[in-house]
C-alpha cells in the first residue's frame, strides 16, 4: 500500500495545448484536449472545458462514442460503438448511443443548438461503470467531459440508460456547464438540477410527440425495477415535475423528499452527504414551476413556449443565481419572447410555488360621509426632557 507517485512531466506547455485544442484537425484537437484534461494539477475538467468553449470546432456533424468501463471505474473505457457504426450486441451501449442522438436532435431542431457546447462538441458516454468492483452502481453522472452510466443494483435499479429523460438530464448538465455554469451547491445547484430535469423531461416528451397533458412528467421511471411503489397512481420514478414528493413511496427507498413549494424548502448541509445543500431535493420547487408555467401558457407542447423561455433563461443566468433571480429572469424572457399573456402565466407559476410574492389584495374601503376633521390635540410641552439639540 502507499500513495502512487504522480509524474508531473508536461512536455507541451499549456498555452500550446490550448491553441491545439482549437485546431481544425480533429485528431490534433482531441489529443490536446485529452492532455489538458489529464493535467489535473492545472485546472478542473469543468474549468478546462468551459475555457475551451470559445476555441472549439464550429458546428459540425453529430459525433457519438460509447465506451464500456467493464464494471470498473476507469474512464472512458473500451470503445464499443462510434458514430455511424453498426449497433453493438450490448443493449445498454445502444441505449446510451440512441439517447444521446435524440437529445442532440432535440437541441438542434428546437433551439438550433449545436451539441453540448453549441460548437459541435463530441458526445462521449461510458456504460457499465462501477465505483466498487463488487457493487452495482446506482447512478449516472456528467463528469465535466462525458456521461457515465451504472447498471444499477439489480434489485431496485436497472441500467440508468433505460430512461431517455435521464440521458437528456446528464447531457443537459453539459449544456448548463457551457451556459449559466450554475454553481453546484444550494439554490444555484438546485437550479442546475432543475434545468436538467426540465430539459430531460422535455426531450422525452418531444421524442414521443406528447402534449403537456399526455406527458407523465416523471424522471427515471423506466430504470426503476418492478416492485418499487410510488406515492400516487402514477408509476414509481426518481422525481415528478407534476407532483414533487410523490415519485416514490417504498419500504426500501423511503419517500420522495422533494418539496413543491418554498414553505417546504429543505435546509440541508452544504456537504457531500448533505447533497451540497439538497440540490436534488429543492430542485422540486423550480421543477414544479416549469410544469405550472406549461399549464398556464396553454400551448400544446412544453417546447412550444415554456421550453424557449427556460432555454433563454439558462443562457442568461449568472453562476450563483437564486430561485428568485431565476424566476425574474424567466418572466423577463417571457415578455421578450411572447408578451404580456406569457408574463402573467410564468409569473403565476412562480407565485404558486412561493418563489415570487403574491401581490397583496387591496381592499377598497366604503366611502363614508364627510365629517369635519377633528383638530389634533396639541402636544403638551415636555416638562422634564431637555430640548432636542440642534441638528
Amino acid at each position, binding site marked *: 500500500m502507499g500513495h*502512487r507517485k504522480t509524474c508531473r512531466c508536461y512536455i507541451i506547455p499549456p498555452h500550446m495545448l490550448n491553441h491545439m485544442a482549437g485546431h481544425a484537425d480533429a485528431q490534433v484537437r482531441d489529443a490536446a484536449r485529452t492532455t489538458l484534461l489529464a493535467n489535473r494539477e492545472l485546472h478542473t475538467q*469543468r474549468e478546462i472545458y468551459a475555457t475551451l468553449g470559445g476555441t472549439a470546432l464550429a458546428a459540425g456533424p453529430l459525433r457519438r462514442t460509447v465506451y464500456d468501463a467493464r464494471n470498473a471505474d476507469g474512464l472512458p473505457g473500451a470503445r464499443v460503438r462510434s458514430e455511424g457504426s453498426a449497433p453493438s450486441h450490448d443493449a445498454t451501449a445502444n441505449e446510451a448511443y440512441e439517447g444521446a442522438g435524440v437529445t442532440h436532435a432535440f437541441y438542434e431542431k428546437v433551439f438550433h443548438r449545436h451539441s453540448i457546447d453549441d460548437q459541435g462538441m463530441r458526445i462521449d458516454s461510458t456504460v457499465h461503470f462501477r465505483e466498487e468492483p463488487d457493487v452495482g452502481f446506482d447512478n449516472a*453522472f456528467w463528469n465535466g467531459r462525458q456521461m457515465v452510466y451504472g447498471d444499477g443494483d439489480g434489485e431496485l*435499479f436497472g441500467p440508468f440508460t433505460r430512461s431517455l429523460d435521464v440521458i437528456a438530464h446528464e447531457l443537459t*448538465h453539459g449544456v448548463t*456547464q457551457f451556459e449559466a455554469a450554475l454553481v453546484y451547491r444550494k439554490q444555484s445547484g438546485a437550479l442546475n438540477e432543475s434545468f436538467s430535469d426540465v430539459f430531460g423531461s422535455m426531450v422525452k416528451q418531444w421524442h414521443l410527440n406528447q402534449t403537456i397533458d399526455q406527458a407523465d412528467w416523471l424522471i427515471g421511471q423506466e430504470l426503476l425495477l418492478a416492485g418499487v411503489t410510488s406515492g400516487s397512481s402514477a408509476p414509481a420514478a426518481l422525481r415528478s415535475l407534476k407532483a414533487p414528493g410523490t415519485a416514490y413511496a417504498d419500504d426500501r427507498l423511503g419517500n420522495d423528499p422533494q418539496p413543491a413549494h418554498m414553505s417546504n424548502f429543505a435546509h440541508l448541509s452544504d456537504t*457531500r452527504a448533505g447533497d451540497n445543500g439538497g*440540490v436534488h*431535493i429543492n430542485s422540486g420547487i423550480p421543477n414544479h414551476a416549469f410544469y405550472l408555467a406549461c399549464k398556464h401558457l396553454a400551448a400544446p407542447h412544453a417546447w412550444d413556449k415554456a421550453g424557449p423561455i427556460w432555454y433563454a433563461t439558462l443562457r442568461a443566468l449568472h453562476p450563483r443565481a437564486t430561485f428568485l433571480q431565476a424566476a425574474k429572469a424567466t418572466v423577463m424572457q417571457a415578455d421578450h419572447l411572447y408578451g404580456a399573456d406569457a408574463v402573467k402565466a410564468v409569473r403565476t407559476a412562480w407565485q404558486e410555488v412561493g418563489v415570487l410574492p403574491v401581490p397583496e389584495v387591496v381592499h377598497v374601503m366604503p366611502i363614508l360621509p364627510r365629517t369635519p376633521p377633528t383638530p389634533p390635540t396639541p402636544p403638551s410641552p415636555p416638562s422634564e426632557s431637555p430640548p432636542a439639540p440642534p441638528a
Partner: protein
Amino acid sequence: MKLVLERGGGVAGLRKPPLAVDTAALPVGDRDRMVALVEAAELATLPRVIGDAANDQLGYTLSVTGDDGQAHTIDLVISAAPPALRELISELRRVAAPPSARTPGS
C-alpha cells in the same frame, strides 16, 4: 476508534443510512486491518474537501474519531481520493452495518 461514512448526491438523490464502524466491536483481524488502513490513509495530511462536486456524482463524507477523541472529517468523491483512502472506504463498506443494526452501547 469510530468511523462513519455518509453518502449523498447521485442523479437519484437518495439518502441512504450512514455506515458506521466501531473498531472495538470488530473481530480482532478486522480491527487490526481497519486500524492499519486508517494509519496508512494519513487523514491528518489530507485536505478537508477532495474533488469537485461534479454533476450527479456520488459524494461521501467520512468521519473518523480516534480513541483519544481526535476527529477528522473529509468530504470526497471517490474518483479523486488517494488510493489509501479508497482502500479504507472499501474496507469500511465491507465490515459496516447501518447504525440501527449495531448493538446498544457499542
